């Protein structure tokens, strides 16, 4: 019962996160952020450069390449990024945990 509950909690949290990206993110404010604004005001905004990695980022500025619809493009890029972050954090934590009590836990799971 408890196990079911916590799974439900995680599913709801992920659903809310997905909804934030799909429904709200495309309508988010496109004003410059505090740093960009201050840089432009003080006059060092032009000194921003771009490393090769940034230039070739696959979903630059949160847009999925090839998708014409801007809102859809943002949503797809956002969900892809969220999935990457989710799997890395979960998988990483799982790997660390397993390495710690691996000898006992791994054998019993069989």
């Amino acid at each position, binding site marked *: 019962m408890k196990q079911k509950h*916590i799974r439900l*909690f*995680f599913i709801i*949290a*992920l659903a*809310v*996160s997905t909804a*934030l*990206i799909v429904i*709200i*993110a495309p309508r*988010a*404010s*496109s*004003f*410059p*952020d*505090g*740093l960009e*604004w*201050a*840089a432009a*005001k*003080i006059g*060092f905004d032009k*000194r*921003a*450069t*771009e*490393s090769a*990695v*940034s*230039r070739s*980022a*696959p*979903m*630059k*500025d*949160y847009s999925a390449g090839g998708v014409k619809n801007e809102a859809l493009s*943002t949503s797809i*890029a*956002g969900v*892809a*990024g*969220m*999935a*990457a*972050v*989710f*799997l890395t*954090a*979960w*998988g*990483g*934590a*799982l790997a*660390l*945990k397993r*390495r*710690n009590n691996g000898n006992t836990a791994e054998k019993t799971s069989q």
Partner: protein
Amino acid sequence: MHIPDGFTSMEINAGALAIVAGVTAIAIRGAKKDLGDKQAPMLGVTAAFIFAAQMINFPVAAGTSGHFLGAMLAAALLGPLNAFLIMEIILTFQCLLFSDGGLTALGVNIFNMGIAGGILSYSIFAALRAIAPKNRAGFLFALSAASWLSVVLASAACSLELSFSNMAQLKLVLPAIVGVHTIIGAGEAIITAAVVSLVLGARPDLVQAWRPPASSIGSRIEVEL
């Protein structure tokens, strides 16, 4: 406040990266030792939520916008070192996939948002928690104040780095950047307190920073069972 390439000097970038690498090693060692059964998926879900919420830029003042940071939310749910790892993962993907924050400034961005806005702010939360009333309101008050401070501290660190990198004079850049972030911090405090109260209502055992007050032994036992 994701710093792009070109704004911070090599020395600042390298120094921040060294500190971040050291803290990462400590955080990984801590995670190996302490991660409980529920925490591995919780780490993933918290990271996913923070990433999603960071995409929502809200208008702040005079044509600027800001978004949620989430370091204090993660720290309240999972402790400051796990929160640091979460911020590190989010910022790394934002940099590599979306070009949000420069690669050369990645260490600086992780320092600002994971250490100044995360670990340091959490220690202030812990101090506030010790003097605040030992109930839910006191807990949420300490959390809100520390969440506001986390955004302000991260933006202050950003201003200092820009000034050390000779990008702008501190007396100009500090009030400009921190000024905007004192307003963004209010949003941070509201969102963090709201999300943590929701989790406290549903699953108080998932809020690591929440220790039931000593007077309510009954609810504590219930939580632990």
